[in-house]
């Protein structure tokens, strides 16, 4: 195989973050995400974001690994910002309860400081969840991922399905490539030259053989799993699950504190989820 494909390109690098158990990382991810989702205080959000970028550095994730994801996120955020402004230009003032016009645009569209703050805050909210998600995905062994899903209460059948998908995805991908080449040799045109209405039909010519050749495989896998007792008990253990170490507890403690601190800021300092400097 020329391309050793790894989904989310999980790398076996050895850093403090990689050494944490998958469950720890999932819990930390959830704490920190909830913190930024709950809070509309840009100061808090920027702090969490700075923290997660620092962690991103510690875990030695290279920019090339996340480049594509970052590009998609930026496109999404910009589109989202433009659309939200056009649909609800007054959202910021409604939420914050004040209205400070800093520029008049066309018709009912006024630019208010509240709106700018609200949108910038929202932008950073999304933007700070992304590095967290990437850290989790890129530093967690895929099977540990399944076992951690199971330990936070996801049914093990569903969690194992995640692991199986990761296991067989490269096989499917290789099959897809082989089938696609064989069909191209027969004359299938996959280029953009083909008329749009044909492209769907052409895609079917690859997908149908892919489905049929995968059906054989599914029967085999389910037999192999039955024969080794899958589904026998209500619970199962996981070979890849790790014992919690002090580092794990520390990591969970830190993220829990950040989460609580965020809530505390909302309750005691802002007296609401929103931070309004324009009052």
């Amino acid at each position: 195989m020329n391309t050793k494909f790894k989904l989310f390109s999980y790398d076996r690098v050895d850093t403090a973050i990689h050494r944490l158990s998958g469950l720890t990382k999932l819990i930390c991810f959830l704490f920190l995400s909830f913190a930024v989702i709950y809070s509309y205080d840009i100061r808090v959000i920027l702090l969490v974001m700075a923290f997660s970028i620092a962690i991103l550095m510690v875990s030695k994730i290279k920019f090339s690994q996340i480049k594509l994801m970052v590009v998609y996120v930026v496109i999404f955020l910009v589109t989202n910002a433009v659309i939200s402004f056009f649909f609800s230009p007054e959202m910021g003032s409604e939420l914050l309860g004040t209205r400070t016009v800093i520029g008049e645009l066309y018709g009912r569209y006024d630019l208010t400081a509240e709106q700018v703050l609200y949108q910038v805050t929202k932008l950073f909210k999304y933007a700070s969840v992304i590095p967290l998600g990437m850290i989790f995905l890129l530093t967690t062994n895929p099977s540990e991922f399944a076992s951690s899903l199971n330990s936070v209460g996801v049914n093990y059948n569903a969690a194992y399905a995640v692991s199986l998908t990761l296991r067989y995805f490269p096989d499917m991908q290789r099959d897809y490539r082989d089938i696609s080449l064989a069909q191209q040799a027969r004359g299938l045109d996959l280029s953009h030259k083909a008329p749009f209405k044909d492209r769907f039909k052409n895609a079917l010519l690859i997908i149908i053989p892919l489905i049929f050749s995968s059906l054989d495989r599914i029967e085999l896998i389910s037999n192999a799993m039955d024969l080794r007792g899958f589904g026998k008990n209500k619970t199962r253990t996981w070979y890849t699950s790790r014992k919690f170490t002090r580092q794990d507890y520390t990591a969970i403690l830190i993220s829990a504190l950040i989460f609580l601190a965020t809530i505390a800021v909302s309750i005691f300092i802002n007296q609401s989820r929103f931070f309004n400097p324009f009052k």
Partner: protein
Amino acid sequence: MDMNPIIEFKDFTYQYFSQAHPTLHDINLAIYPGEKILIVGPSGSGKSTLGYCINGLIPFAYKGEITGSLAVNGRATADQNIFELSKQVGTVLQDSDGQFVGLTAGEDIAFALENENLPVEPMRDRVRRVAGMVGMEALLKSSPFELSGGQKQRTSLAGVMVHDVDILLFDEPLANLDPATGKVAIEIIDDIQRKSGKTIVIIEHRLEDVLHRHVDRVIVLDDGRIVADLNAHDLVSSQILTNCGIREPLYVTALKYADVKVKPEIDPGYITTLECESTKKDLVAWQKSIVVDERENTNPSILRMADVTFSYDGERNVLEDIGFDIREGEMVSLVGKNGAGKSTLSKLLCGFEKQDRGQIFFRGEDIAYKTIKERAEIIGAVLQNPNQMISKPMIYDEVALGLRFRGVDESEIQERVEKVLKVCGLSPFIEWPISALSYGQKKRVTIASILVLDPKILILDEPTAGQDYRHYTDIMEFLVDVNKLGVTIILITHDMHLMLEYTPRAIVLSEGKLIADTDASVVLTDAEIIRKANLKETSLYNLAQKIGIEDGARFVQNFIDYERRIKNR
């Protein structure tokens, strides 16, 4: 033996609900603890079904009607569930890649223990211990993509041995392995049985390869019935194998050609036990009687590769300085172990990838500028799994697809499709849906769908993989017919019988380099090439050595020529 049988079938009949007739009839079979049993039979004989009955997939996963009884460890399987049975019977399925459910070898071995809720610490210990038994302890962290076929099979074996099972059931363990790895697999099974005393049941149609090591009894199934229950010596001395369409060991065929009376007294079951003194004279005389068949192919060149080098990543060359010249009308095999560069070579020929250096000539003309689509009209490639190529529900449409893509008009399409279906023996099925066809017929459909484009060269990847002797012969004789029509054929294969019987010439790749381009009989008798390409010497060569014939390659070649001549007569 006055022990109680560990597996006992009594008047056992089984019919799948989806079938009109029983697959197994009146099976009476007792297997005793510590025995090593081989079950052989052609495709459709019911041998896999028999295995499913033992491991509980029947009736757990495949529903059907059972009469009579089957007991494992003295308890009727009807009263047990598949999970209870899985702790007594460990099954290694034939596709060791497909059944690899873990993301690493260690995880895969641990799978059964995870399902038992074993805590992690003892689980790791047990995995390490069992991995040690099959020589996988250093590879526990490897992913399936980093493991060879043999290593995956060892992983599967360890995965069922984590439970202290009494019975190990192997369902066609050799099907996906190259000859050298297959040989090692049989040795591992044998060693485990010797060390642990477990009962071993091997289901396989490649008799000769399993008989590389001793088995206690061979059970022959045909048409759902047990037709023989013999030791290896008695079996190869009988007519049973020929009658059921199972290939007998090649050296036995040679003995028969030489008019040696094959009888149990000469211990003919294994090449190692064969008694030679009495057979020597006849064999030497037969060998001398064969007129050397000199047929040089003097046709002009159709495909030439010159100094072709290719790398996927620009660092490691997958192919290096490959050069060969194939003449029109030849039938050549391309061999080498997995990763040697065979499929890459075929991708270069089809234009799916482009060589970094060197040239490919078709009838003396460099084809570098031709697109994938144009190449397909010269060189057609057939994938191993027909399901990967079939994309239309009806045979006619499937075969016509390539022509429709090329905008050929319907009347000409009809003419060409009908013609090619006739060549492929598929005319009676022209209006049939493909789903109604057997594996071999589907294979023919895929070949037809390529042939309809009228390529001058056909490349087939393992055309007979997983086929029993009869289907193998069907497919290969069909390819011989295609070859006679003037199509040059290149076969990518691990099958040494195929090489010997059908391709006079073999091109051998190893680590991206061409290490041999010569007669198949020479390749399969050269220890160095055999080692590098993960092949196994043919038993004909072992026979020649045993009786002291110096020129082993000549002996093998004589056998092939002799066989071809009687077949053509």
